[in-house]
C-alpha cells in the first residue's frame, strides 16, 4: 500500500543557475555607469583598474554618443507609428568582447549593443556609421514591436502543454506550444531597416542593392514561404537576405500604397491576435500577401535585369572565380551557371524540381568558397592565401595555377585535391572578416586571432584552456608557414603536417609562431616591405586608431588619437615603405587617405561622397581601391604617375578587397547570392576607364586637417554610477496537463514571472502552478562575481490517486476474494538549493550544487502531514560540452560530445513515525546514513566515417552514430529515493529542446528501474529521411524529417536481501529485515541478477522519427514519435503494469516487490512541439 512513499515529486527537481544573455562569463572587474536622458537611460561598463590592466576598457564615449543619437531619433521613430513611448528605454553598451552584438527585448525596454561593430559586418551594409545604424535599428524594433503587439507586454504569450501517461497502453503523449506574437522575420528585420530609412538614419545603399540584385540574377530570392517561416535556413546570408528583402519590400509598398503601409500592419495586429499575421497585408492593401510578394518579385526582377543589361552595354569585364578545377557550377557571369544546370543536381539530391535543384546547387557551391575574403599573393608570388570565414588557407600556388589568371582550365581532377593537401590552414578564432598580410622575405603571415589562439589550436579536442577573467580579445599573431614533405602511398607531396589528437588530424599551431606583444584589440595588420614593422588598427571604445609596431612587439607608436567613433579599414604600406594608405570613416564620409609612415603629412586621396575603401598598393606604386561610384562597388586604380583614377572592374556582382598578382592581374572579392568568392581579372581585361572627374582628388589640406581635428562635444551627457535598475518584468500564463492516470483531469494553471537588472547581475524567477498538485518555485541568481551563484526554494503538494488490489489469500489465481480499493495520498516536498557554477571556457564548466530536501505524506484520514525524510546532498560536477555553452538541439547533431562527471555526498534521515523513523530497503533497516555517489555520462555524436563504399555514401547523407554511456555507483545501500532511477522518460518532463538524445531504457516504464550501481549504454544510428522538405503539411511547415534507430543494454543493480529465513525477520509490516546488515549482498554488475527487476541485463530497441517544423508559420514546433520494445519481463514496486492498481500480495507494505510484472512489449512516445 505504501509504495507511493516513493518521492514522485522527483520530477520537479531544482535546477542550477541561469546563463546571461550575451557573455558566458561574468566580468566583476567592471563598474557600471548610467547616463540619463528624457527618454532613455544608457548604461556602460568601465574597468575599475586602470593601471597595468591589459584588459582595460570603457564604453563612455559610445554611451554618450548613444544618448545623443537616442534622443534625436526618439521623436522621428515614434512618429512613424504615432506611438510615443511613455516608458524609458534602457540602452546597455557592451565592450567586453570584440564581436558584434545588437539586440532588443522590447517588452523589457531593453536594447543591448556592443561598442565594437566587429570585423566586417558593415562591409555588407555599405555603411560604417555603426552606432546610429544599430541603435536606430534596435529602437525601430522597440517601437514597431510594441506597436504591433497583440499582447500585453508583460506576457510573452500563453504557454500550453501537457503530458498524458497511459500506463495500460504504455503510451506517453506530450504536447507543448507557446502562443505569442507571430510577426514574420522579413517584416521585423526588414522593417527595422525600413523605418530607420523612414526616420532619416538609413538609406538603400549599394551593398544592400547588391544583395537583392545578385539574389534576383542568380535566382536565389527567398520564397514567400521562406519569408514567412524561415529565419536562417542556410546560415547568416539568408538572414541578411531576409533583412534586405524585407527592407526592399517596404520600399516597394511605400511606392505603391503610400508611406505608412508597413506601419499599418503593426497597428492592425495590435487590435487582436491572429494566427496568420500576413492577413494584415490584405487588410491594409487590399491585395493578398502572396500576390504582393509576387508583384515585388516581378518589380525587382525587371529592375535588376535592366541594370545588368545596362552594365553589359557599358562593357562588362571578363572575370571568373579563382578555382583550380572546374566545379559543377562555375561562375563566369550570373548567367554562366546555366551551362552547368543539368539533371545531375536532381540525381544527387534525390529530389526534383527547379527550386530544390537550385538550393542543392547553392549548398554545394557554398562549400567551395563561402565567406572568402581578402585574397592575396605573397610579394614573391610563391604563396596564395585567403581568409575563408576566419580560416586562413595558404597555398604554395602560383597565379598560373588558376584558370581565372592563366586562362587555362585544369581538366586534371586531382589538382584541387593536391593543392588542398599542400595548403597550410590556420583556424584562427576571431579572424573572421579581418585583413591579414604576408611577411615580405619570409614564409610567414601576420593575422588577427583571439588571445588564446595558440592554446585553442593546440588542444582542439579537450579544450582544457582555463579562462579566469572572461576576456578573449583579438591580437596580432606572427605565424610561419610550415610545410613538411608528406608521403602518401607512392606519392610524396609537400604539405603541412597535421597534428594528431586521439587519431584525429587537426591543423596545428605552427612552430615559431607567437602573439605579437602589445597588440591587444589590434586588427587589419599590414607588414612593411622590409618585414620589420606592422601597421594596424587598435580598437578602443567604438573607435580605431592607426598604430605601427615592430614585428616583435616593441616600439609601438599611435599615429592617430581619435576617440570619436572613427573607423578605419585596411591599411597598406607603399612599396617603398614610406607611405601608408588607409580607408577611414569619419564624419559621415569614407575616403582613402595617405600619410607618411611616421603619421605625419596626412592627405586625402579621395574626399567625396562615395564610399571608398580597401586601399592596396601595386608593385609600381599605384593604389588599388574599391568605390561605389556607380552604385556597384568596383575596383579602381589611382595612377601614381598621372594622378588619374581608372576603373578596373565592371561586373554586376561588384568587386572589393583588391590585390595585385605578381603579373599585374587583380584578384578581388565578389559577391554572389550564395556567398562571397574570390575572382580574378587579367590586365588585358581591365576596363581602364578614366573616371577621375567623378572623384574629389584635390581636397584642400586645410579641409582635411579640419575634418581630422574635429571633435564632437558630448560633455553634457554626464554619467552617474549604475543603480541596478531592473528591467520590466516578463512572464507568461501556463496551462498544463500532467495526467498520470486515466481518472483525473490533473489540469494545472499558473504562470511564471521573472525580472533582471540591466547589467544582468541579478535574476529572479518565480513560478507557480495550481491544480490538484501545486508547486511554487523561487530562484535567484547572481552573476556579478566570477562564478554564478544561485539560491532557490521549491515547495509543493501532490495528490496521488491509486488503486490497491487486496487478495485475502494472497493467491491471484483465486479472484473471489479480491477487491480493488481506491486511495488518494497527499505528498509535500520542500527543497532549498544553492549552486555555484563557473564556466572555465565555452567547453568546461565546474559546478557545486547543494540541496536540502524534505518530504512527507498525509494519508486518507490523517489530520496532519507525516514527514518521511529529511536530507541534504552536495554534488560536484565537471561538465564538458563540445557544443559550447549552449546545448545543441538539432534533430541530427553531427559530431561532438557532452560529458558530465559528478561526485556527490549525501545525508538522509528517515523520520517517518509510522515506521518508527526507519525504513527498509533491500532488507536493510535504514535510519540515517551518509552516502557517496559518483556518476558519469558521456554522449558522443559521430558522423559515419567516409571510409569508402556505403560508409562514404552514409557520410554524405549525414548519417550519424550516437553513443550514450551512463555509469554510476553509490557506496552503500540507500533508500530508493536516493538511488539511480531509470525507465522511459518524455522530453516534456525536461522542457523543450533540452539535450536528451535518448531516454534511458525507453523500453521500460518510467522509474521502473532503480538501484545503487548503474551501467548502461545506448547506441543510436540517425539519418535524415528528408532534408529541406520545406513544405506545408496541414498547419505545419516542415523542414526536415530525421529517423533514428536505437537500442539500450545495461541495468541498475542493487543489494540483494537475504533469502535464508534464519538471516532475516519480518517486521510489523511484514517486510524482510536482515538480522545482520552484512548479509545483504551487493549485486555485481553483469554477473548478478538485479533482484528488483529480475534480470541480469535489460535490453530495449526502438525507432524514432523527428520532425523539425514550424506551427502556423510562426511557432517552433519540433516533434517526435518513438516506438521502443523492452525485451525483458520486469518486476518492481507498486503499479508496475501501469493500470493504476497496485498489487502486492506478499506483504501489504514496504519494501517487498509487487506481484505485478511488465511483460516484454512495446512502449510508445509521442511529443508534439516538445522537442525530442
Amino acid at each position, binding site marked *: 500500500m505504501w509504495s507511493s512513499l516513493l518521492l514522485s515529486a522527483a520530477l520537479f527537481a531544482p535546477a542550477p543557475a541561469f546563463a546571461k544573455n550575451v557573455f558566458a562569463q561574468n566580468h566583476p572587474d567592471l563598474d557600471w555607469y548610467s547616463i540619463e536622458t528624457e527618454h532613455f537611460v544608457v548604461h556602460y561598463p568601465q574597468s575599475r583598474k586602470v593601471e597595468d590592466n591589459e584588459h582595460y576598457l570603457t564604453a563612455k564615449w559610445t554611451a554618450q554618443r548613444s544618448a545623443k543619437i537616442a534622443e534625436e531619433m526618439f521623436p522621428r521613430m515614434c512618429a512613424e507609428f504615432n*506611438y*510615443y513611448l*511613455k*516608458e*524609458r528605454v*534602457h540602452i546597455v553598451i557592451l565592450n567586453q568582447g570584440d564581436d558584434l552584438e545588437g539586440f532588443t527585448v522590447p517588452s523589457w*525596454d531593453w536594447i543591448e549593443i556592443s561598442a565594437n561593430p566587429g570585423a566586417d559586418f558593415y562591409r555588407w551594409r555599405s555603411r560604417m556609421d555603426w552606432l546610429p545604424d544599430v541603435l536606430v535599428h534596435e529602437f525601430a524594433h522597440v517601437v514597431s514591436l*510594441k506597436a504591433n*503587439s*497583440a*499582447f*500585453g*507586454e*508583460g*506576457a510573452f504569450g*500563453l504557454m500550453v502543454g501537457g503530458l498524458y501517461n497511459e500506463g495500460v497502453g504504455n503510451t506517453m503523449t506530450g504536447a507543448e506550444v507557446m502562443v505569442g506574437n507571430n510577426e514574420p522575420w522579413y517584416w521585423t528585420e526588414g522593417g527595422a531597416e525600413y523605418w530607420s530609412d523612414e526616420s532619416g538614419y538609413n538609406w538603400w545603399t549599394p551593398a544592400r542593392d547588391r544583395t537583392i540584385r545578385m539574389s534576383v540574377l542568380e535566382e536565389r530570392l527567398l520564397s514567400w514561404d521562406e519569408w514567412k517561416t524561415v529565419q536562417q535556413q542556410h546560415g547568416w546570408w539568408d538572414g541578411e537576405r531576409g533583412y534586405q528583402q524585407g527592407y526592399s519590400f517596404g520600399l516597394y509598398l511605400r511606392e505603391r500604397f503610400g508611406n505608412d503601409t508597413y506601419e499599418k500592419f503593426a497597428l492592425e495586429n*495590435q487590435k*487582436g*491576435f491572429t494566427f496568420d499575421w500576413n492577413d494584415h497585408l490584405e487588410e491594409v492593401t487590399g491585395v493578398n500577401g502572396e500576390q504582393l510578394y509576387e508583384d515585388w518579385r516581378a518589380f525587382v526582377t525587371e529592375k535588376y535585369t535592366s541594370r545588368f543589361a545596362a552594365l553589359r552595354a557599358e562593357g562588362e569585364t571578363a572575370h571568373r572565380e579563382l578555382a583550380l578545377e572546374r566545379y559543377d557550377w562555375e561562375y563566369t557571369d550570373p548567367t554562366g551557371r546555366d551551362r552547368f544546370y543539368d539533371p545531375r543536381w536532381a540525381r544527387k539530391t534525390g529530389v526534383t524540381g527547379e527550386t530544390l535543384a537550385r538550393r542543392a546547387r547553392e549548398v554545394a557551391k557554398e562549400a567551395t568558397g563561402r565567406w572568402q575574403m581578402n585574397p592575396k599573393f605573397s610579394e614573391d608570388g610563391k604563396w596564395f592565401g585567403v581568409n575563408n570565414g576566419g580560416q586562413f588557407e595558404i597555398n604554395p600556388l602560383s597565379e598560373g595555377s588558376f584558370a581565372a589568371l592563366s586562362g587555362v582550365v585544369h581538366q586534371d581532377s586531382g589538382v584541387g585535391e593536391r593543392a588542398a593537401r599542400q595548403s597550410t590552414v590556420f583556424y584562427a578564432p576571431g579572424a573572421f572578416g579581418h585583413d591579414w598580410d604576408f611577411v615580405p622575405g619570409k614564409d610567414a603571415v601576420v593575422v588577427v586571432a583571439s588571445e588564446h589562439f595558440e592554446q585553442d589550436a593546440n588542444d582542439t579536442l579537450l579544450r582544457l584552456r582555463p579562462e579566469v577573467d572572461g576576456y578573449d580579445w583579438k591580437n596580432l599573431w606572427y605565424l610561419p608557414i610550415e610545410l613538411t614533405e608528406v608521403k602518401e602511398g607512392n606519392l610524396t607531396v609537400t604539405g603541412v603536417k597535421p597534428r594528431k589528437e586521439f587519431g584525429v588530424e587537426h591543423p596545428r599551431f605552427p612552430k615559431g609562431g607567437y602573439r605579437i606583444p602589445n597588440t591587444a584589440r589590434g586588427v587589419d595588420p599590414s607588414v612593411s616591405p622590409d618585414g620589420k614593422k606592422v601597421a594596424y588598427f587598435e580598437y578602443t571604445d567604438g573607435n580605431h586608431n592607426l598604430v605601427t609596431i615592430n614585428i616583435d612587439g616593441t616600439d609601438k607608436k599611435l599615429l592617430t588619437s581619435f576617440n570619436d567613433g572613427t573607423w578605419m579599414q585596411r591599411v597598406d604600406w607603399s612599396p617603398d615603405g614610406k607611405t601608408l594608405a588607409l580607408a577611414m570613416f569619419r564624419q559621415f564620409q569614407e575616403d582613402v587617405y595617405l600619410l607618411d609612415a611616421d603619421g605625419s603629412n596626412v592627405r586625402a586621396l579621395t574626399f567625396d561622397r562615395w564610399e571608398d575603401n580597401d586601399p592596396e598598393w601595386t608593385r609600381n606604386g599605384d593604389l588599388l581601391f574599391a568605390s561605389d561610384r556607380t552604385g556597384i562597388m568596383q575596383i579602381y586604380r589611382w595612377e601614381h604617375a598621372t594622378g588619374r583614377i581608372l576603373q578596373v572592374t565592371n561586373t554586376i556582382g561588384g568587386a572589393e578587397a583588391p590585390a595585385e598578382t605578381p603579373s599585374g592581374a587583380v584578384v578581388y572579392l565578389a559577391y554572389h547570392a550564395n556567398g562571397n568568392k574570390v575572382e580574378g581579372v587579367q590586365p588585358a581585361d581591365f576596363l581602364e576607364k578614366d573616371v577621375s572627374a567623378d572623384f574629389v582628388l584635390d581636397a584642400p589640406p586645410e579641409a582635411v586637417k579640419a575634418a581630422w581635428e574635429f571633435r564632437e562635444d558630448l560633455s553634457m551627457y554626464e554619467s552617474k554610477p549604475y*543603480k541596478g*535598475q*531592473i*528591467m*520590466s*518584468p516578463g512572464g507568461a*500564463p501556463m*496551462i498544463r496537463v500532467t495526467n498520470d492516470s*486515466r*481518472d*483525473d*483531469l490533473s*489540469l*494545472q*494553471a*499558473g*504562470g511564471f*514571472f521573472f*525580472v533582471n537588472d540591466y547589467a544582468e547581475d541579478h535574476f529572479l524567477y518565480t513560478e507557480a502552478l*495550481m*491544480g*490538484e*498538485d*501545486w508547486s511554487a518555485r523561487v530562484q535567484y541568481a547572481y552573476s556579478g562575481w566570477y562564478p554564478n551563484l544561485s539560491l532557490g526554494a521549491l515547495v509543493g*503538494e501532490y*495528490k496521488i*490517486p491509486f488503486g490497491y488490489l*487486496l487478495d485475502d489469500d494472497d493467491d491471484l489465481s483465486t479472484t473471489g476474494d479480491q477487491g*480493488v*480499493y*481506491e*486511495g*488518494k495520498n*497527499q505528498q509535500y516536498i520542500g527543497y532549498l538549493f544553492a549552486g555555484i557554477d563557473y564556466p572555465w571556457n565555452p567547453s568546461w564548466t565546474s559546478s557545486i550544487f547543494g540541496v536540502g530536501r524534505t518530504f512527507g505524506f*498525509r*494519508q*486518507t*484520514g*490523517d*489530520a*496532519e502531514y507525516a514527514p518521511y525524510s529529511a536530507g541534504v546532498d552536495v554534488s560536484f560536477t565537471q561538465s564538458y560540452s563540445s557544443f559550447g555553452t549552449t546545448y545543441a538541439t538539432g534533430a541530427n547533431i553531427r559530431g561532438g560530445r557532452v560529458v558530465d562527471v559528478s561526485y556527490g555526498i549525501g545525508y538522509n534521515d528517515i523520520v517517518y513515525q509510522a515506521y518508527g523513523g526507519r525504513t527498509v530497503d533491500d532488507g536493510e533497516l535504514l535510519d540515517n546514513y551518509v552516502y557517496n555517489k559518483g556518476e558519469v555520462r558521456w554522449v558522443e555524436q559521430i558522423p559515419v566515417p567516409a571510409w569508402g563504399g556505403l560508409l562514404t555514401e552514409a557520410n554524405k547523407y549525414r548519417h550519424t552514430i550516437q553513443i550514450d554511456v551512463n555509469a554510476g555507483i553509490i557506496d552503500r545501500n540507500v533508500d530508493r529515493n536516493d538511488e539511480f532511477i531509470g525507465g522511459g522518460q518524455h522530453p516534456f518532463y525536461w522542457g523543450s529542446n533540452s539535450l536528451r538524445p535518448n531516454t534511458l531504457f525507453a523500453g521500460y516504464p518510467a522509474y521502473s528501474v532503480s538501484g545503487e550501481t548503474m551501467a548502461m549504454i545506448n547506441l543510436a544510428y540517425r539519418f535524415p529521411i528528408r532534408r529541406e522538405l520545406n513544405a506545408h503539411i496541414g498547419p505545419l511547415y516542415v523542414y526536415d524529417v530525421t529517423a533514428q534507430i536505437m537500442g539500450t543494454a545495461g541495468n541498475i543493480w542493487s543489494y540483494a536481501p537475504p533469502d535464508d529465513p534464519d538471516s532475516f525477520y519480518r517486521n510489523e509490516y511484514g517486510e524482510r529485515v536482515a538480522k545482520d546488515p552484512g548479509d545483504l549482498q551487493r549485486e555485481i554488475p553483469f554477473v548478478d541478477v538485479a533482484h528488483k527487476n529480475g534480470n541480469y541485463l535489460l535490453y530495449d530497441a526502438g525507432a524514432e522519427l523527428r520532425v523539425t517544423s514550424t506551427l502556423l508559420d510562426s511557432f517552433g514546433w519540433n516533434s517526435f514519435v518513438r516506438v521502443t520494445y523492452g525485451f525483458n519481463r520486469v518486476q518492481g514496486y507498486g503499479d508496475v503494469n501501469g493500470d493504476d492498481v497496485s498489487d502486492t500480495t506478499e506483504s501489504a507494505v514496504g519494501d517487498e516487490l509487487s506481484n505485478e510484472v511488465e511483460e516484454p512489449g512495446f512502449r510508445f512516445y509521442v511529443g508534439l512541439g516538445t522537442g525530442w
Partner: protein
Amino acid sequence: MWLLPLLAALPDAVAAGFQAKTMRAPMSAVEVERPLVIGKGWLEASFGYDHKFADGAWSSEGEAVQWESARWLYTTERLGIRYGFTRSTEFYWDIPFHYARLKNDVLGTDTDGFGIGEPKFGWKWELFNRSVPTTSLVLDLQYKMPTGQETAGTYVGGPNTFGTIPMSTGQADLAAFLRAKQQFGPLAIEGSVGWVNRFSGVSQFVVEVDQYQFSGRFKPGSEVRAELSPMLQLGPVALHGNVVWRQWFEAAVGTTAEGFFVDENLDPIAGSDGYAVDAGGGVVVNVTRGVDVLASASVPIRGEDLLFFPLESISPTRGPTVSTSVELRY
C-alpha cells in the same frame, strides 16, 4: 505577485521596471465606466478577506434551521490576479486561503484549520464592447482546481466528528458564464448567468468506514448560477447591490469505473440537489486609477439542503458574510 506591494518600499531606480507602459489600454478612474475585462497590459493584484459567521442552515424543505450549539466561522483570505492579455481578453487567478472553525459547546468540540482552498483560473473574452456609455459583454471560462487539503481527519465517531476541516472538494469544476454590463450615466447594471460543471474525483473526505478507510469517488452536483448587480457611482465612490441565485443538481458517489468513463459506478444521492439565494451590497472606493478599496456584505435569503457541510462551495451554510479587499493595479 508579492513584488507589487513591495514596490512602494523600493527606491525609484529599482522600481524602474514597473514604469507605466504605452501599450496599456485606457482605464477609467471610476468603477461604473469600467468594462468587464481589465484591458490590455494591466496587471491587478487584489488582497481580500471574507468573514462568514453561520449559526444555522437550510433544511431540506427550505426552512431556516437554527443550530442549537454549533458556531461556524469560515474566513477566506483571497489573493487575486488579473492580467489584460490582449485588448479583449484577460486571464485571472483567484487563490483563496481559508481559516475555518467549528465550535460545538454541547459536543465539546472545537475544530479549526487553515490552508489553501480551491484556486480558480479563468479567461475572459469580451465579445462586445462600447464605451461612453460602457457596454461590455463577456464570456468567462473558469477552471476550479482541487488544490486544498481534502481529508476530514479520522472518522472515529462518524462524519460529525471530523478532526480537520477540508478545504477542497477534491474534484475539478469547469464553468462558463456570460456576463454583461450596461452603463447609464452614473448608473450601471451588471448581470451574469452561467453553468458550473462539476467533474467527479477520488476525494479523501469520502471514506468507506466499514473496513480499511479507503477513499471513494464523488461528483458534486453541477450548478446553474445567476447574478444581478446594480451600481451607482457618486464621485469616487460606487455603491452596488447584488442578488445571487444558485441551483445545484444531485451529487453522486461510488467507486471508479474502469476505462475512460469513470463515473459509471456512481450512485446519485437522493435529496442532494438544492438552491440558495443570497443578497447584499457594497461600496467601491476608487482611490486612484491604480488603487481601489472594496467593502461589501451579503446575507442568505432562501435556500435548502445541508448535505455536505462543511464544504461551503457546494453546500453553503446560513449566515452573513462581510468582505473587504484592496485592488492594486500596475
